[in-house]
């Protein structure tokens, strides 16, 4: 009987942990998307100083996101997003508008892909 209670407790811990992790993953994803959106807007308006300031904010958000996503997400997907964000930061420094807008779009798509794999949907189940 003790084992049954213990395993039931395990189950509840995993369930609660999954819900909390999902909520946290979602929150980080939105922060990342908003930061990328701000960079996109600043670059479109040729406001490179604002883009540069936002890139520093983006790196801080990414450091938090990477630390929490890497232990639970497919490392290949996280690495792809990491490479894309590195390119975004470098392209802001180089002020290459066209390439930067493409890379921001790629980074947004990669982040969405990672977030979507965690959504408890029929598509993901199968």
């Amino acid at each position, binding site marked *: 009987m003790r084992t*049954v209670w213990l395993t039931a407790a395990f*189950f509840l811990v*995993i369930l609660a942990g999954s819900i909390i992790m999902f909520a946290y993953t979602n929150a980080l994803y939105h922060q990342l998307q908003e930061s990328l959106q701000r960079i996109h807007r600043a670059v479109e308006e040729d406001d490179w100083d604002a883009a540069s300031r936002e890139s520093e904010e983006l790196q801080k958000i990414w450091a938090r996101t990477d630390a929490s996503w890497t232990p*639970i997400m*497919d*490392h290949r997907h996280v690495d792809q997003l990491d490479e894309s964000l590195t390119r975004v930061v470098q392209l802001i420094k180089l002020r290459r508008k066209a390439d930067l807008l493409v890379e921001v779009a790629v980074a947004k798509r990669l982040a969405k892909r990672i977030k979507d794999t965690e959504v408890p949907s029929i598509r993901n189940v199968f």
Partner: protein
Amino acid sequence: MFRTLILFALVIISMRIMGKRQIGELQPYELVVLIMISALAAIPMEDIAIPLFNSIIPIILLMVFQVLTSYAAQRSEKVRTLVCGRPSIIIQNGKIVESELRNMHLNINDLLEQLRICGYHNINDVEFAIFETNGELSVIPKSQCRPLQPRDLQIETKYEGLPHPLIVDGNVNHENLAKIKLDLLWLQNELKKRGIEDVKEVLFASLDTEGQLYVQRKEQKMR
């Protein structure tokens, strides 16, 4: 290496929590759980791109479901029938039940082979043969063919309990000694009577319910 160690420890803990059944005694659902746990543990050991949590959580969940299913099967006849199935009577009153044989996808040769493994070379000696839910065959021989029992001859037998191991590989089992209300001094005296000065010289010693002490010395090391 750390991933392997963590997964190894997790699989061992899971197996310990799930119980002590041997492979041949597993119910079908327990075998399924065992195979799935093995696969889940093996894949992230070789592919470091897969997060360890992707294996740890399913392994724990499988263990949880296995324990809860076992508990439900213990408490409910319906659940037991659903997850474990029912035993199949293959030979009833000395006659092969063909319909059960077909249901089990067995042929006569398979049945004869299983009977031979159980020690029955002649089907004529068998009154009942039952395929248990874990795949084992239980055979009940005809009354004239079963081994002779002391009660058939109305012979009184003494109680035979379990012998208590007292020394294993030179180490005294104090717990067993206390259980049979004896002490180390008694054990050392008994060993001295057999020409053994130190318990470290003993490979194995046990005491049976008749009070007989079995002692085997360690082999002398070659120098």
